[in-house]
């Protein structure tokens, strides 16, 4: 993952694509929006072409839904981070979402408050994993700041 996080947005709702793009614009110094798509199939083609660091996708879409999309991205591009979003989530969907390989889920009810913290959290986890690997390779003890 680079200092600039490249992001693809997939949602059949134009309104939510615009909301997410607007939120990303407010952190354009650390993220780069590389494209959006109105369906899972078009989104997968975009992801294959752009190979982004992160995909933010709706969960419930006609055709290829967010869960199947996440599974395919995880297989093809295992380093790409995946954030699912939905208005609400039923238990059955939750189990499938949990097994899809996605990194995070954000409720659309709170998207303006939570999307940027979620992106930050996912990036932090990746950075922590890389730091842990680097420390192991260098023979250093785990981080101990206090």
């Amino acid at each position, binding site marked *: 993952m680079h200092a600039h996080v490249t992001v693809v947005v997939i949602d059949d709702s134009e309104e939510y694509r615009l909301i997410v793009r607007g939120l990303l614009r407010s952190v354009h110094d650390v993220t780069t929006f590389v494209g959006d798509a109105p369906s899972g199939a078009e989104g997968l083609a975009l992801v294959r072409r752009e190979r982004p660091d992160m995909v933010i996708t709706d969960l419930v879409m006609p055709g290829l839904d967010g869960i199947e999309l996440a599974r395919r991205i995880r297989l093809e591009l295992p380093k790409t981070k995946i954030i699912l979003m939905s208005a609400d989530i039923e238990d059955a969907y939750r189990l499938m979402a949990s097994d899809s390989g996605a990194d995070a889920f954000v409720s659309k009810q709170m998207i303006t408050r939570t999307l940027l913290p979620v992106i930050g959290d996912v990036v932090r986890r990746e950075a922590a994993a890389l730091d842990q690997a680097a420390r192991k390779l260098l023979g250093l003890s785990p981080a101990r700041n*206090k």
Partner: protein
Amino acid sequence: MSEPGDRVPGIRQKILAGHLPKENCRMTWYGPGTGGVCVACEQPIADDDVEVECDLPTGGTIRLHQGCYDIWVAEWPTCDVG
């Protein structure tokens, strides 16, 4: 709910005592509070609070206020003892 800075010592204590895990979440779920109790501060998570559910890689799920979650993820990597 108390100020974030006031919650740090209690959350560190829980990490050091083994009552909060020292590992990154496998998957996180951000949404409105569902009326449960935050595992970090032991206060209810109201429906207008942001609740973070953390699926742990070793199994199980913990629920926290977003503010408590942020403190926990910042503190646990610094809580190694020995």
